[in-house]
């Protein structure tokens, strides 16, 4: 037990860690016109598959930017949501950006961040040196990580199957989820970790539901087994 003898001292202590980004990458590439499932990739250099997120833009200064799995709306095409949309996913050695472009050739600028999954025990090098990168500022909230783990989702038969993880926080907590898929857009690839809600055809309809006592992975009928990763925060 740590104690403070004087109120003039400040002690900052938390039983819950903050998010720590272990991968930061930015760059650009040319996205060809009228391309579906176009892939851009880069080596992430980590000894594990990172849990990725970030955003993308068509302006070099990111003056308008989009989350992955979202994009420019509307497409102007029947049955197609976005004019341009990009998803991010990672394999054991690379980070991929899968792109759908229903318009002209454009330069895409991307920013990708990655977390280390709980299942990893790798030693990793800091992103920055001399404490110069993560800023814990009292001007902002730092979401406190409460549960950080992975779970194996079973293959399903002819009915919807639910897999739950109890958190008992009592509110709807901030939650991030990723699912490992072996295929996307009908092509078989090595196991790749996709954020939940990806729109690149990899999701197989799996959704992640948050309520006041648990998160629930909702598995559609007739899908194979998957590994899912989740990060549940004490913050709502």
């Amino acid at each position: 037990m740590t104690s403070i003898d004087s109120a003039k001292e400040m002690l900052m202590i938390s039983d819950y860690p903050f998010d720590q980004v272990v991968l930061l990458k930015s760059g650009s590439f040319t996205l060809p016109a009228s391309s579906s499932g176009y892939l851009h990739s880069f080596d992430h250099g980590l000894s594990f598959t990172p849990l990725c997120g970030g955003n993308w833009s068509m302006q070099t200064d990111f003056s308008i930017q989009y989350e992955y799995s979202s994009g420019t709306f509307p497409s102007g095409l029947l049955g197609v949501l976005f004019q341009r949309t990009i998803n991010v996913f990672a394999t054991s050695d690379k980070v991929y950006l899968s792109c759908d472009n229903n318009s002209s050739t454009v330069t895409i600028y991307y920013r990708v961040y990655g977390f280390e999954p709980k299942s990893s025990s790798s030693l990793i090098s800091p992103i920055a040196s001399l404490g110069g990168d993560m800023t814990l500022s009292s001007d902002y909230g730092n979401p406190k990580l409460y549960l950080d783990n992975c779970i194996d989702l079973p293959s399903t038969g002819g009915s919807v199957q639910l897999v739950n993880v109890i958190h008992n926080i009592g509110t709807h907590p901030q939650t991030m989820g990723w699912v490992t898929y072996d295929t996307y857009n009908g092509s078989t690839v090595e196991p790749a970790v996709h954020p939940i809600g990806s729109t690149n055809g990899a999701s197989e309809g799996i959704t992640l539901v948050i309520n006041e006592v648990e998160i629930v992975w909702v598995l559609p009928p007739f899908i194979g087994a998957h590994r899912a990763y989740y990060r549940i925060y004490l913050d709502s």
Partner: protein
Amino acid sequence: MIIPSKFILTTDFPTLLNEGAVGGSITIPGSIAISGGGNATGSVTVDSGQAGSLSRGRIASTKNFGDWYAGQGIIFNRVGSVGPYGIVAFMWRPSNTQITFQVIVNNPSSSPMVGEAGDETIYFYSNQFVAPYA
């Protein structure tokens, strides 16, 4: 540091700083009528706070009371007069300081459709983060 009531700590790993949250809702009228192959759309645009922020989204429906779906978009499956149809609910950005919550109800049939009975309100919630980039 000039103002002692503030503090800054640093480590060698960046993090995501939560600068707030925004939300909105859209109500779909019960038994909505949509022409064959047509769509009904609705949207609400809100100020997302600091320019360049990242979004961590959640979406809920009054027909799935108490459940929030993680992600920037979700398709709710419903059954209307011509059979199953989807309600697509998603978030997108019309500008760098705004976020739009959008709903599209699609009639997949070439015949006119009447949607499920009962008004349905779609709720959106987006935590906004300062991106860990220079």
